[in-house]
């Protein structure tokens, strides 16, 4: 797939990957063997009928291809961009054994974009069942909430989504940067849901503006889905962590994406434009933060990770992009202190690590090398070491059963300990992926539908 040159793209926030042309898409689609036993399909967490949508590209019936995607996935232009395809559908493709699976994600993206480029009337709006008379509330407008809302609407229920921020989309809007997922795409995918009759209420914090009880007892909702995400950033607890210039990745990315700090002072929210930036972590979030810092004008960006590149949980593609753009990798080291002057960061002290015996996760656990501390000069430190469950909602719904780590306990259908209340996405599983959150939202929607119809 064509990409913009590293030097050019690292200077702005425009999308890195340019997407296929029609010819390229068709040529790639032709590589698909249309297998009798399409092993790619079970590789997708929501079981998109991959063989069939690719078949429609080959036949040139793109609208039919879009319809196949939307059967299972309300946001194809998003998933085609951010899914870890190489671990899901593509690794399961028969051609993967030969080293070159069909580029399923890129084809999905191309079809998704084809649909978005159509005029609204021509876009594929899934068929909506006759009105059931039931009202459902969805808490949170991230991928889990949006997928649940879309499916509930399709099943004929009236749906209201409550979002605490001023814009819907969850991590798609505030976390994943523009250069990887343009916000205009998220907005038009969401527009599709509102076309289906889904109402989105922003500025509504469930637990503060309404409790879950009130939604059901006073506001007349028959069932509630909670998809509030894993929002609370983790800090490492090392000295100096509250110095000016130390950010959580959530704060840094929110300032830039949601609040458009890169347009400061035209947009009112500032962000530190670090000259030398250290990002701590090795996941997608760390890559996004590092690449964002580069685009804000940093001269040097270091990625500090305590294991090696092989253990990094980030997608290969993102690691590759980050390196190409000039992010410097400092592997096998872990922060032990952040130092500063007059309240502002001047450096990060790190300790070298060695890989020891495999731990519970099967990865070799890093151990400190005594006396190996060294200092990295920097004026900004971004912590991308994970998130925890936000306690806000749970505090307001004390009967909701939680795991010992504060995540909502839900069964395979998303049912929680409260009748009529379902949950899914990161608030149940801990930080995962967009498509897994969407899958959970959709499964819950079906379970909610059964719950409602049985009650009638």
């Amino acid at each position, binding site marked *: 797939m064509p990409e913009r040159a590293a030097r050019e793209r690292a200077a702005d926030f425009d999308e890195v990957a340019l997407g296929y042309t029609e010819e390229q898409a068709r040529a790639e689609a032709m590589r698909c063997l249309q297998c009798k036993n399409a092993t790619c399909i079970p590789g997708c967490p929501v079981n998109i009928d991959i063989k069939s949508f690719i078949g429609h590209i080959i036949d040139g019936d793109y609208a039919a291809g879009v319809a196949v995607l939307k059967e299972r996935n309300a946001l194809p232009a998003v998933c085609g961009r951010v899914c870890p395809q190489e671990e899901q559908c593509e690794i399961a493709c028969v051609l993967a054994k030969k080293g070159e699976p069909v580029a399923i994600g890129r084809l999905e993206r191309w079809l998704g974009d084809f649909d978005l480029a159509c005029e609204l009337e021509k876009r594929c709006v899934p068929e909506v069942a006759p009105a059931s008379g039931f009202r459902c509330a969805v808490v949170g407008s991230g991928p889990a909430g949006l997928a649940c809302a879309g499916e509930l609407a399709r099943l004929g229920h009236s749906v209201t989504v409550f979002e*605490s*921020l*001023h814009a819907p989309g969850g991590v798609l809007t505030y976390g994943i940067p523009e250069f990887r997922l343009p916000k205009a795409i998220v907005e038009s995918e969401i527009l599709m849901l509102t076309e289906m009759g889904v109402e989105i209420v*922003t*500025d*509504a*914090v469930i637990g*503060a*503006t*309404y409790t879950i009880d009130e939604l059901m007892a006073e506001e007349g909702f028959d069932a509630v889905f909670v998809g509030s995400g894993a*929002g*609370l*950033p983790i*800090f490492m*607890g090392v000295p100096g*962590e*509250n110095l*000016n*210039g130390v*950010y*959580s990745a*959530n*704060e840094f990315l*929110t*300032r830039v994406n949601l*609040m*458009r700090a890169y*347009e*400061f*002072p*035209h*947009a*009112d*929210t*500032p962000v*530190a434009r670090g000259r030398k930036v250290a990002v701590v972590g090795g996941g997608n979030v760390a890559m996004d933060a590092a690449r964002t810092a580069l685009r804000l004008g940093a001269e040097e960006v270091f990625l500090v990770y305590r294991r090696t590149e092989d253990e990094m949980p980030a997608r290969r593609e993102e690691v590759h992009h980050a390196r190409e753009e000039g992010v410097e990798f400092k592997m096998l080291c872990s922060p032990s202190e952040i130092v500063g002057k007059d*309240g*502002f960061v001047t450096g990060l002290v790190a300790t070298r690590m060695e890989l020891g015996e495999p731990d519970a996760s099967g990865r070799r656990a890093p151990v400190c090398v005594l006396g190996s501390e060294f200092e990295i000069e920097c004026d900004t430190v971004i912590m991308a070491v994970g998130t925890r469950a*936000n*306690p*806000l909602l749970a505090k307001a719904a004390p009967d909701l059963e939680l795991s010992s780590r504060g995540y909502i306990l839900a069964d395979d259908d998303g049912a929680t300990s409260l009748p009529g209340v379902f949950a899914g996405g990161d608030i149940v599983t801990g930080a995962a992926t967009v498509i897994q959150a969407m899958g959970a939202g959709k499964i819950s929607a079906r379970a909610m539908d059964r719950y409602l119809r049985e009650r009638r």
Partner: protein
Amino acid sequence: MFEVVHKRQLSDAVFEMGVAAPRIARKVAAGQFLMLRVDEDGERIPLTFSDWSAEEGWVRFIFMRVGKSTHKLSHLEVGDAVADVVGPLGVPTHTEDLGRVAVVGGGVGAAVAYPVARAMAEAGAEVTVILGARNAELLILADEFAALPLAELIVMTDDGSAGEKGLVTAPLKRLAESGSIDHAMAIGPAIMMKFCAETTRAFRVPTTVSLNPIMVDGTGMCGACRVSVAGETRFGCVDGPDFDGHAVDFEELMSRQRVYAEEEREADAEYSRGCACHL
């Protein structure tokens, strides 16, 4: 959009504003705050509820014009609208079973102190309010406080142009020393809260402060608002804004409040150049 339904100028730089927000008005308790975004380019700023009416569906806040966001806000008139209002956020101030309490409101902190003192008095506490301002012109809400059922209202100004001349810590010390208070609450600039907490520490009077760290989302998602309390990092927006004044690291708070000083000056200077009010 949230319609502005009330506006009143309290002093040169301090304004009282009300917006229609029926859903929020039903839920507010004293000490809680809202996040407000003036317009589509606006930043999210926290402001404390100063008053509200569930029946009439409005909430009010009092703000001081200090930078671009509050400058823009000060230009709105009744009938205009702000893009976003979110709330009520934060843990409500503890107002029950306080016995004899001194509430100190410094500068625009008086706006936050007002609903707090009112709620404490309603809950049966014997409330002494100490209001502090640089001069009489900057003193706000004195009449409103005077109308509350208080044990005493003490006014302090730096230059003696209203009430007594001196700092709020002087009467606070008097009250703490004489054993006339069981609890103190200080709301205002960080430096004032710090000195109030120092004053009461010697007399072991439990002291609550209402912290004002920089915030972004106000819901626990970003950590911008982190403060150190008893050596632990806490999030001002969801764990606070009220904390034990004797355990707060005020130096860190004050340092963190200044992180964007340069950018803030730049933004307001740029805005003021194109702004008709020339303030």
